[in-house]
Every structure is written in C-alpha cells, then in structure tokens.
C-alpha cells in the first residue's frame, strides 16, 4: 500500500499554529455574524449579502484547511467542487422557479 497510501498521506498538512489560527478566525467570524444580528445593521439591504459572504468564507476555510483540500490531490478537489457547483446551481434555479429570487 505503501506507495499509494503514502502518496495520499505524505502531502503537506497545516501545522498546529495554523489550526489554532483557523479556529480563532472561525470563532471571530461567527461572533461578528451574531453581533450584527443584534444591531440596526440587520435592517440594511447589505445585511444578507454580508452574512452570506462571511458564511462562504467560513465554509471555504474549513474545507481548505481542516479538510486540507488546499493540499490534496486535484481529483479530490474535483469530486467536491463539481457536486458543490451543481448544488449551488440547484438552489439558485429552485429559488428562481419559486419566485424567491428575481432578476
């Protein structure tokens, strides 16, 4: 197994310091998300886009560093991003179909 198995596992991984900073950043973004929920900013038209961006950043950080996709084989990247794009397109298409979004 060794060659193949090690090919999977001897790729670069984030260090403990990086893991710690990722956790701090994720916690900080979550704190900001909850904080703005209780401020007058929640009535702003920018509230939803800002929340979506922060959520997307958290999503990307976990996938890239904790799931170490940033350091992994391109096949794994394709296996995840392909269905993810289909999933996003499905959500958008259904929201348009049911008139939850409009152009």
């Amino acid at each position, binding site marked *: *197994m*060794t*060659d*193949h*198995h090690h*090919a*999977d*596992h001897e790729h670069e*991984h*984030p260090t*403990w310091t990086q*893991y*710690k900073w*990722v*956790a701090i950043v*994720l*916690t900080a973004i*979550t704190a900001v*998300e*909850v904080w703005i*929920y209780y401020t007058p900013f*929640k009535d702003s038209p920018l*509230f*939803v886009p800002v*929340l*979506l961006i*922060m*959520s997307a950043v*958290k*999503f990307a950080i*976990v*996938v890239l560093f*904790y*799931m170490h996709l940033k350091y992994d*084989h391109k*096949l*794994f990247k394709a*296996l*995840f991003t*392909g*269905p*993810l794009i*289909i*999933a*996003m397109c*499905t*959500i958008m298409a*259904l*929201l348009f179909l*049911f008139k*939850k979004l409009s152009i």
Partner: protein
Amino acid sequence: MATASADHAHEHVHYTTTGLDHRKIAIWAFIGSECMLFASLISTYLIYKGRSIVGPFPHEAWTSPSGQKFNAILNIPVTSMSTFVLLMSSLAMVLALAAVENRGKPGYVGTALGNSKLWLAATALLGATFLGFQAFEFTSFVHEGLTIKTNLFGSSFFTLTGFHGAHVTVGVLWLLTLLAIDFKRGLTPKDALIVDICALYWHFVDVVWIAIFTLVYLIK
C-alpha cells in the same frame, strides 16, 4: 507459510489506477453527493420560508385567532453556542488526526498534542454536546407549539435540522468506534487514513451547519 505471507502482503497493497486510495476517493464522492442532498433540503426550507399561514414563526411574534400569543421561536444565543461547540469539535478532530499521523515523532511523544484518545474523546463529546443543544431546542419548540406538522416552517425546519442532527449522530458513533480501537490496540500512523476519512465526514457536517446557521437562524 509462503501463501500466508503472500496473503498478508496482499492485505496491505492496494494498487489503484489513480494512485489514490479508493476509500478516500469514495468518501469525497460521498461528500459530493451529500452536498446535493443538503442543497435540496436547504432549497425546500428557503422556498417555504415566509409562506406559513399560521405561527409560530421563526423571527416574528404571532397571535392566533383565539388570542394565544407566540414569541419568535428561534433562540439565537443558544444556537450560537451550539455553533461554537461544533466549530471547536472540528479543531479537536484535526488535532486527533495530527496525533495519529505523528505518533512517535518528536514534539508529540508524551504531550497532549500526541494524545489521540484525548482529541477523539473531545470531538465525540463536543458532538454529543451539540446534539444535546439540538434536543433542547427541539423540545422547547414543541413546548412552544411548533411541531413538524404545525406549519410549513415547522415541516421544513425539523426536516433540515433533523437530517443534519442524524448526520452528527452517525459522526459521534463513528468517533466512538475509532476511540474504542485506539483504546484496544492503539491507532498508529498506518491507521491515519481511517481517521482521515472520519475527519472529512465530520468537517463536512460542520460546513453544512455553517450554511444552516446563516440561512435558517440569522437571515430573517
């Protein structure tokens, strides 16, 4: 003897056309399919959002025709805590994987960082805590008059978060299985792949919650 030896060697050799272990390809393909499952559940929730005829509602108070008053049902402080707990469980999970991968290496021997049992147990405990928060939330919703058949919000909310909770439950059981193996014979760097596969599933459950927390709880 020679045959037994050859069989033993065969157990540990997995030649693949891609050069990648099939189990890891399988878990990524599974995670990809799970993306589409949760996309359908999230879409359903968003489509039905705001279309409930009767309350309770997620973000607004409601008075029924009979005069009964219902508060906005979502409890953001409690859910924020459970979100934090799940994020910390992901940190514990990466530390568990690092402990297994680096077993015996300088900086890991005899330190907390090298204690895979500690981090696997911490991850399982944090996951179970998240489930406890969810059980508390579901119970309080039912007491406040929201069940899966009360209105469209209840149906789509309980289906979406219930599916996620079921995934967390599977993850906790998986982690406890790895913990039992670690206690029984000790996980070594050769076992890193089986821990990595569990870790990928666990982080995926975490990223799904990141999306649910924003779309369901924070966006009105």
